[in-house]
C-alpha cells in the first residue's frame, strides 16, 4: 500500500472510549451499528456515518453455513506449539501424514510463538529407598508441599514416561529441534540447573527457544500447516470423532477437516482472568480461549481441573506492558526477601508473622497464599494498582532474576522513563497456566473415541495447567496412543456433515446478528473483570459467589445482545472475539463454580476451608453440562504410591540426575 493514496476523512463521531453504548452515547452507537448493518447487505459507500470511512468493515465475504470446504487429513493436530512438536516428529517417523491447524500465525502463536527463553526441564526421577528410580516426576505424598501430583492421574503419567523415547533434553531440543542452548559456561559446557533438594532430581537448562523446533518440523513433506485457522467444534459421527469445523480467519472461509485421529494440543486458557487495557492478568496468549475444550463441554464432555491455575507475580504497571512475560519484571517464592508492601515493610520476613521461609521457595501455593492473604487483610498497604512491591532497587534481587526479566530493566529505562534500579516495581498476581480440559483415559483419549488431548484433565492436577516439559511429554504420548488406536479403529467411509452445517450457522449468526447493541469487547471485558476479581490464589466464598452471579448474568443477558459492528468476513477480529466469548464464559463459569465446589484448600487457598481434606477431596472435580445445567461430580484417580524415604546415598541421587540428563538406556 502506498502513502500517496491516502484519503483522509475526518470523523465527527468523537465517542468516549468507554461510553460507547451507555447513556448519551447510545444513539450515536446505534447509528453506527445501523450503518454497518446496511453495509452488510452489500457494497455501501454512502452510509450516513461515512465520516468513519467506507472501509469500516463493510464487506461481508462468504458466511453462508453451507458454503464450506472439506479437507481430508490423516492425523490432525489442533495447535502447533510445544505440545505438538514431539508428537508430530514421531508421527512423521511412523510415516503418517500430519495436518496442523494453528489459530495464530504459525511460529508466532501461543506460547511457542512468544519465542520466550524457556527453561527446559528434564524431569525429576525420584528414587526409592533402595535407590531404584521411580519414573513419575514430582510424585510423592507429602501434603505439606505443593507440587503437582496429589490429584493427577498417576497411571497416565507412568504410561507416558515409560514409553517416551525423548527423555533427554538434548535429544529432543538440540538433535531434533534445531536448538543451540547458548547459555554456556565460560568453557563452553552447558549450564545445568540441578541443585534442587530431594525429591526434585530435576535438571533444567535455560535458553530454550521453541521456534527452532517449529522451523525443523516443516522440513518434512508429511507435515502441512494451516495457520490462522480457528477450530470451533468437533464433528462426531456415531459417537466417534471424525474431524473438526474451522474458520479460516484471513478469508472467513468455513472448512471441515476430516481426520482419522484428532489430537488437541492447544494451550491453556488464561484469558478469562482479569483485564487491564490490552491484556488479561496473564502473560499467556489471547489465542488461547479454550475454543475446542468448551465446544466439547457444550457437547456434554466432562471437563476437569477447572479450579486450578498456576500463578506468579509480574509487574502490573505501566498498563500497556502489564502482565507481560517478555517486557515485565517479576518475582516469586525465591525472592521473598524482596517483597515489600506500599509502606516499605518486608512483610514476609516479619518474625511476628511466623512464616515458614524455607517453604516459600519450594511451595509456590503456600507462598502465594501467604502473600494473597496479607494483601486481602491489608488493603491500605497496597500500591495504586492494588499490588505489592518487589524491591528491584536491591542488586541482590536483580541478580536473582532470570535473564528474560532482567533484560527488561533496560527497556523500561529507555522507553518508559522508569528506572527499576531506582524505583521499586508494583506487581500483582498473574495466571500463566490453567486447567479446565477434557477428562481423558490413561492413554489421553477423551470420551469421544479418536479425539486425544495432550493436556487432558489429570495431567497436571492442582499444579494448574501444564508446564513445558509435561506438555512435550504428553504431546508425544498422545501421538503414540493415537497410533495404537488407529491399528484397530474403523474409520467411517462417509461423513455426515449436518452438525458441521449447524455449527457454521451458529458462527454466521454471531456475525450477522443485528439486535442487542453490545460490542464483543464490552462483553469480553465484563467476563474478564468478573472472573479476575475472584480467581486468585486466595478465594473467598463471597468473592466466588459474586463472580458466579455476574458471570451467569453476562451469559443470560449480555451475551445474547452481543453484536459485531464489523460485518466483514475478512480477518474480522471482532467476530473472532465474539465467537470466543461463548467459550470464555463457559470456562470462566466452570473455574468459579468448581472453586466453590471444592471444599478444601488444594492448589489455592480458601479461608472458609483452610486445610487439605484428603478424606473427602483426594479426587478430580469434573464439570459437565447435563440437561443444560452445569453439574459437578467427583472422579477418583488411579492411585500409585511409593516410598518417600530419601535414597540412601548421594550417589543414587546423582545416578537419577544423570539419567535425567542423558535418558534411559533403551
Amino acid at each position, binding site marked *: 500500500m502506498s502513502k500517496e493514496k491516502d484519503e483522509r476523512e475526518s470523523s465527527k463521531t468523537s465517542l468516549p472510549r468507554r461510553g460507547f453504548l451507555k447513556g448519551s452515547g447510545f444513539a450515536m452507537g446505534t447509528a453506527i451499528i445501523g450503518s454497518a448493518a446496511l453495509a452488510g447487505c452489500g457494497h455501501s459507500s454512502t452510509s450516513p456515518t461515512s465520516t468513519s470511512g467506507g472501509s469500516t468493515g463493510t464487506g461481508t465475504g462468504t458466511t453462508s453455513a453451507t458454503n464450506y470446504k472439506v479437507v481430508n487429513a490423516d492425523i490432525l493436530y489442533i495447535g502447533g506449539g510445544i505440545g505438538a512438536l514431539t508428537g508430530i516428529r514421531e508421527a512423521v517417523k511412523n510415516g503418517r501424514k500430519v495436518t496442523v491447524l494453528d489459530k495464530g500465525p504459525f511460529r508466532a502463536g501461543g506460547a511457542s510463538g*512468544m519465542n520466550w527463553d524457556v527453561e527446559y526441564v528434564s524431569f525429576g526421577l525420584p528414587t526409592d529407598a533402595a535407590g531404584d528410580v521411580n519414573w513419575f516426576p514430582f510424585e510423592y505424598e507429602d501434603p505439606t508441599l505443593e507440587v503437582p501430583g496429589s490429584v493427577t492421574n498417576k497411571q497416565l503419567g507412568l504410561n507416558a514416561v515409560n514409553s517416551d523415547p525423548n527423555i533427554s*533434553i538434548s535429544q529432543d531440543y538440540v538433535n531434533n529441534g534445531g536448538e543451540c542452548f547458548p547459555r554456556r559456561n*565460560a568453557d563452553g559446557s552447558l549450564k545445568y540447573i540441578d541443585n534442587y533438594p530431594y525429591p526434585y532430581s530435576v535438571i533444567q537448562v535455560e535458553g530454550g527457544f521453541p521456534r527452532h523446533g517449529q522451523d525443523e518440523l516443516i522440513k518434512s513433506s508429511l507435515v502441512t500447516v494451516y495457520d490462522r485457522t480457528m477450530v470451533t467444534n468437533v464433528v462426531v459421527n456415531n459417537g466417534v470423532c471424525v474431524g473438526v469445523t474451522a474458520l479460516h480467519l484471513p478469508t472467513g472461509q468455513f472448512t471441515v477437516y476430516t481426520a482419522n485421529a484428532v489430537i488437541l494440543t492447544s494451550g491453556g486458557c488464561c484469558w478469562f482472568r482479569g483485564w487491564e487495557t490490552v491484556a488479561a492478568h496473564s502473560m499467556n496468549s489471547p489465542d488461547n480461549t479454550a475454543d475446542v475444550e468448551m465446544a466439547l463441554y457444550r457437547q456434554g464432555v466432562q471437563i476437569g481441573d477447572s479450579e486450578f491455575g498456576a500463578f506468579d507475580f509480574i509487574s502490573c504497571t505501566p498498563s500497556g506492558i502489564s502482565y507481560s512475560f517478555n517486557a515485565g519484571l517479576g518475582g516469586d517464592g525465591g525472592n521473598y526477601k524482596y517483597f515489600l508492601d506500599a509502606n516499605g515493610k518486608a512483610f514476609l520476613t516479619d518474625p511476628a508473622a511466623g512464616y515458614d521461609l524455607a517453604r516459600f521457595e519450594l511451595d509456590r501455593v503456600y507462598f502465594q497464599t501467604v502473600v494473597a492473604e496479607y494483601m486481602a487483610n491489608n488493603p491500605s498497604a497496597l500500591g495504586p494498582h492494588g499490588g505489592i512491591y518487589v524491591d528491584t532497587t536491591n542488586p541482590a534481587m536483580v541478580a536473582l532474576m532470570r535473564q528474560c526479566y532482567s*533484560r527488561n530493566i533496560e527497556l523500561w529505562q529507555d522507553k518508559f522513563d522508569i528506572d527499576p534500579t531506582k524505583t521499586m516495581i508494583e506487581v500483582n498476581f498473574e495466571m500463566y497456566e490453567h486447567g479446565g480440559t477434557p477428562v481423558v483415559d490413561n492413554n489421553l483419549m477423551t470420551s469421544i473415541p479418536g479425539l486425544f488431548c495432550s493436556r487432558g484433565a489429570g495431567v497436571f492436577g492442582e499444579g494448574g495447567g501444564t508446564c513445558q516439559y509435561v506438555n512435550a511429554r504428553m504431546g508425544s504420548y498422545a501421538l503414540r496412543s493415537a497410533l495404537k488406536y488407529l491399528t484397530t479403529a474403523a474409520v467411517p467411509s462417509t461423513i455426515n456433515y449436518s452438525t458441521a452445517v449447524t455449527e457454521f450457522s451458529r458462527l454466521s449468526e454471531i456475525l450477522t446478528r443485528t439486535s442487542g447493541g453490545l460490542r464483543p469487547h464490552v462483553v469480553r471485558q465484563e467476563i474478564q473483570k468478573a472472573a479476575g476479581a475472584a480467581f486468585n490464589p486466595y478465594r473467598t466464598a463471597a468473592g466466588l459467589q459474586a463472580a458466579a452471579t455476574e458471570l451467569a448474568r453476562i451469559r443470560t443477558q449480555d451475551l445474547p445482545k452481543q453484536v459485531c459492528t464489523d460485518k466483514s468476513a475478512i480477518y474480522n477480529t471482532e467476530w473472532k472475539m465474539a465467537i470466543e466469548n461463548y467459550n470464555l464464559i463457559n470456562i470462566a463459569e466452570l473455574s468459579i463454580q468448581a472453586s466453590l465446589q471444592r471444599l478444601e484448600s488444594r492448589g489455592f487457598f480458601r479461608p472458609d476451608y483452610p486445610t487439605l481434606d484428603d478424606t473427602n477431596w483426594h479426587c478430580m472435580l469434573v464439570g459437565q453440562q447435563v440437561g443444560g445445567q452445569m453439574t459437578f461430580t467427583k472422579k477418583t484417580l488411579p492411585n500409585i504410591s511409593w516410598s518417600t524415604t530419601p535414597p540412601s546415598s548421594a550417589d543414587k541421587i546423582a545416578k537419577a540426575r544423570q539419567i535425567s540428563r542423558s535418558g534411559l538406556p533403551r
Partner: protein
Amino acid sequence: MDLQVSKFDPSVDTAPKLVTISGIEWYQNMTVLEAIQFAHETTPVAFDYSCHGRACGRCAVMLDGTPVLACVTPITNATHTIEPLAGQTVIRDLIVDKSQAHAALSAKYQRVKNPAVNLSSDSVIASTYNTSGITQLSAIEWCTRCMMCTAACPVYKADPSSYVGPADMLAIAYRFYDNYDAGNRVAEAVQAGLWNCIMCGQCDYVCPQKEIHRVTQIWTDLRTATGGTK
C-alpha cells in the same frame, strides 16, 4: 488524542484509507497498542497481537512512517498515523500476511547438521562449545521475526531482489555461529546480499531487542569471514 488509522477490507476496497478516530484519552506511558485498542473500542479496527511484550512480533505497525512494535512503544499526546507494517501484504486494516516471509526465515534457520557431530549424544551437547560466537547466538535468539528491521531497510525497499533484508540475514548469521551447523553460511550470506547492505543501522535502530548488534558485530563478522570476497 487523534489517530489516523489505516482501514482496508479487500472484499470491498481497492486501496487502504486513513480514517480519523478522535477523542482517545491519552495518559503517560500509553503504548501504541493501547492507543489502537482504544481506537477499536470506538470504531472497529482489525489488528493483531499476542504476547503484549515484544516476544511474538505480531503487533508490528508503522507509526508515523516508522516501524514500531506497538506493545512496547509509548505514544506521545499528539495526532499520529498508524498503518500496517511496510513490506508485507496487507490482509485487513493493520493485519499483514507474514506467511511467505516466515516460511523464508524458517528455511534459513533450519540447521544443516554436521555429520561429524553426534547431536543424539548428551555428552556431546553438554561439552565444550566454541564460545566465540556465543554472545551473538544468544542475542539472535531474541529475534522475534517481527520483520520491522526489513521494513526499515532502505536497500530492501529500493530493491528486494538485491538483499534479503536484515531479518533473513540474521537467520543466516544464526547458523553461521552455530557450532552444530555444517552449511556454507558465508556463501549463503554473500548470495543473500551481504555486501549490498549499506551498513546504515536503521535495522538496529528500530529493533526492540537491543542485544542484537547487526551492523557493528554480526554483519561485520560475516564480512570478515568472507575474507573480503564479494
